[in-house]
């Protein structure tokens, strides 16, 4: 673990010398159904015209880490090239019966649960390979969940810059202030990835984040 952190730190120091030439690995982390893939899709659509993955109302739709390389963002005259890394939602429990509530057959639900557990393990393993991370939180839910705290704590321990996105601000129950109060030491941007709301502020913050990487 310590060796991994040091190796990651050294890699980032060296690659920092060649800033501008390289592609930044930008990870999307968070609990299931927070809108990680929706946001990654929005960015990909805006700058490449293609999507990164499928979205669904059923939790754990993303069960394997998925990428989009060479996503060049040209925002207000500044250019940056990212490798977007969309990760499966991190959870502490997975019950196949929860998927059956969405009219899924038992065998399919069990398969989905098995893939989802592996997805969580992979997402955590990938933390070490990120240059910067966007933590996507559903702003209609309690931000103080231990999963959010554990993800952010692990990023800080690895010295990886973090931007927190309070997603789903188009919904009435969304409370960006509560997310800000939960994480006062971090940049928090309220957006709706689905409706494309407040994306300007998002891109500005993403560029600030990239500078720290």
């Amino acid at each position, binding site marked *: *673990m310590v060796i991994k952190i040091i190796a990651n730190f050294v890699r980032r120091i060296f690659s920092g010398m060649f800033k501008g030439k390289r592609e930044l690995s930008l990870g999307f982390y968070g609990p299931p159904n927070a809108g990680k893939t929706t946001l990654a899709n929005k960015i990909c659509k805006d700058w490449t015209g293609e999507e990164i993955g499928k979205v669904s109302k059923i939790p754990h739709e993303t069960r394997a880490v998925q990428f989009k390389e060479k996503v060049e963002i040209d925002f207000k005259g500044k250019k940056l090239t990212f490798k977007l890394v969309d990760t499966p939602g*991190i*959870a*502490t*429990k*997975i*019950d196949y019966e929860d998927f059956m509530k969405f009219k899924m057959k038992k065998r399919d639900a069990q398969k989905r*649960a*098995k893939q989802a*557990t*592996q997805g*969580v*393990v992979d997402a*955590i*393993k990938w*933390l070490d390979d990120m240059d910067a991370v966007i933590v996507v939180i559903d702003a209609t839910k*309690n931000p*103080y*969940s*231990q*999963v959010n*705290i*554990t*993800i952010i*704590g*692990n990023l*800080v*321990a690895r010295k990886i810059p973090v931007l927190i996105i309070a997603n789903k601000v188009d919904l009435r129950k969304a409370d960006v202030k509560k997310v800000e109060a*939960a994480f006062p030491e971090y940049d928090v941007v309220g957006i709706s990835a689905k409706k494309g709301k407040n994306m300007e502020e998002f891109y500005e913050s993403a560029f600030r984040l990239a500078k720290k990487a």
Partner: protein
Amino acid sequence: MVKKIRKIKGFTIQFLPYTEIENLKSGERIRKLLNVVLKGIIVILQGRLTIEEEARLIEDTMAMVEHVKNFKGVELAVLNPNSNNLGLVGKMKHGLAKALGAQEAITIIGPASIVREMKRDPKKIEILMNR
């Protein structure tokens, strides 16, 4: 109309002093905690795991969900007192107590089959049980 209160099935809580895990390696700590949870017991640990151990706890839990029949995972919450609001003397007291090895945090880990949700805010944790 009188509402009927449904009875909760029995459950067991185990309090674990930090000294029980203090000298264990990371993997052993996590195994010790998960072994208790696998028996259907809610663990209240004095103190907390390191942040890296918390991530590993999630990884190991997911591996167990895949391999242990009827195990659905855990509910996890850590309550860590915020010393930012304390005065200078209070902060000094806190710092001294910490330096002497006092454990201020509380970690609660419960099996997801028994604990439905742990509602956490900065000041308290509420444990909602499955009926």
